[in-house]
């Protein structure tokens, strides 16, 4: 959306294809964003304004069946049987959340009070952080790295945003339920973003969030309907056992299914992490190996909103450059 708006304002004609019935992707399902806890709706409003331009025609509920290069221009076959001709393509297929039920040992879809980070965002939005039976949870655990840094699910990479999301959500839980005791179970705290470390410190200092270094092996439910977790508290060098009312799985980011389909049908290359492989990690992170096809955002790697918007703008610069070279 950012790239479409920027290109439109630079006098290019843009067709924006969206597979869902509305734009906004994952962000529209979220509540407050890190690092400043801005309401996600502000970002959605901003992006909607970007594409409100006479040069942008937005078509929703449409997927791409096929993308083919034909003597310098592209033919895009759409799911409604139509065909679009274009001189350049920006792929912005984003990411999918890791399907947490794949980590069966964590009990998502088995135990009622095991939820995902996305489910919790929806609870915040409704202002109802509740156990399945309607009770207010008193002890809440966050499990980092669900579907990330895990060869067993085929994802070796770090999703990068789940740590800070857990910190943000942990504080948000304390705002909703001041008396709650909150625990984050992590492998490493990866706070490598603007204001992330400050947020982490704030969560300890002002919200009393507890951090336990250890990767959960499995969850069980006991007769009292509590979730029993056992981890190695690696900093104490001892195994630790605890009962929780609610467990939040920090689901990682994966290449989107629609992105994978596009890669298959178009021949665009993907990397070992299954995301689209950029032409060059340093100088061509927006370029594909197919001339005229560019990437924007989390279809190339896990990215936060700031990075996605910057990446989209950089894609626009590459597109404009491409057209300029084509003319000369």
């Amino acid at each position: 959306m950012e790239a479409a708006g920027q290109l439109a304002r630079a006098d290019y004609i843009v067709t924006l294809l969206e597979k869902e019935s509305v734009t906004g992707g994952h962000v529209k399902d979220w509540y407050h964003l890190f690092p400043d806890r801005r309401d996600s709706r502000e970002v959605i409003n901003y992006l909607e304004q970007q594409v409100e331009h006479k040069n942008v025609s937005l078509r929703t509920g449409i997927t791409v069946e096929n993308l083919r290069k034909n003597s310098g221009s592209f033919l895009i076959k759409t799911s409604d049987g139509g065909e679009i001709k274009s001189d350049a393509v920006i792929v912005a297929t984003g990411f999918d959340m890791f399907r947490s039920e794949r980590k069966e040992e964590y009990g998502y879809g088995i135990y009622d009070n095991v939820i995902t980070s996305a489910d919790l965002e929806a609870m915040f939005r409704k202002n109802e952080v509740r156990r399945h039976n309607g009770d207010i949870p008193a002890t809440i655990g966050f499990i980092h790295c669900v579907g990330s840094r895990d060869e067993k699910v085929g994802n070796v990479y770090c999703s990068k945003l789940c740590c800070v999301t857990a910190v943000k959500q942990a504080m948000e839980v304390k705002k909703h339920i001041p008396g709650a005791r909150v625990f984050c179970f992590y492998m490493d705290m990866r706070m490598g973003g603007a204001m992330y470390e400050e947020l982490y410190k704030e969560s300890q200092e002002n919200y009393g969030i507890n951090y336990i270094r250890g990767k959960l092996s499995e969850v069980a439910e006991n007769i009292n309907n509590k979730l029993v977790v056992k981890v190695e508290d690696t900093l104490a060098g001892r195994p630790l056992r605890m009962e929780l009312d609610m467990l939040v799985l920090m689901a990682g980011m994966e290449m989107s299914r629609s992105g994978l389909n596009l890669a298959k049908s178009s021949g665009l290359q993907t990397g070992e992490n299954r995301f689209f492989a950029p032409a060059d990690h340093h100088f061509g992170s927006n370029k594909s190996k197919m001339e005229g096809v560019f990437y924007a955002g989390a279809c190339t790697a896990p990215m936060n909103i700031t990075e996605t918007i910057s990446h989209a703008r950089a894609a626009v610069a590459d597109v404009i450059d491409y057209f300029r070279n084509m003319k000369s």
Partner: protein
Amino acid sequence: MKGRQINYDTNDKSIAEYISEREPSFRICIECGCCSSTCTTGNFTRFSLRELQILLKRGENESVREVIGKCMLCGKCTLACPRGVNTRNVILLAREAFQKRIKNAV
């Protein structure tokens, strides 16, 4: 024999709470171990300030009480801490808490 497992729910976290209320910087430790590496006591005996802090937070108080007298209160740990935890005061408060709550302690 006592098992190795930390039973968080049944452990007594009152010592950690006592410290945390009076020295809030106790909460912001990130377990880097800088305090332990600079600690003279730790270099010559089995005494780790880093481990001691995590054990207090988990309510493993007995194992802390056994060793807390080893600290010489030199305060080097406080100078070294990258997060600004007043580790020296953490020790003092822990001793105070033990004295108040457990007879003949420290």
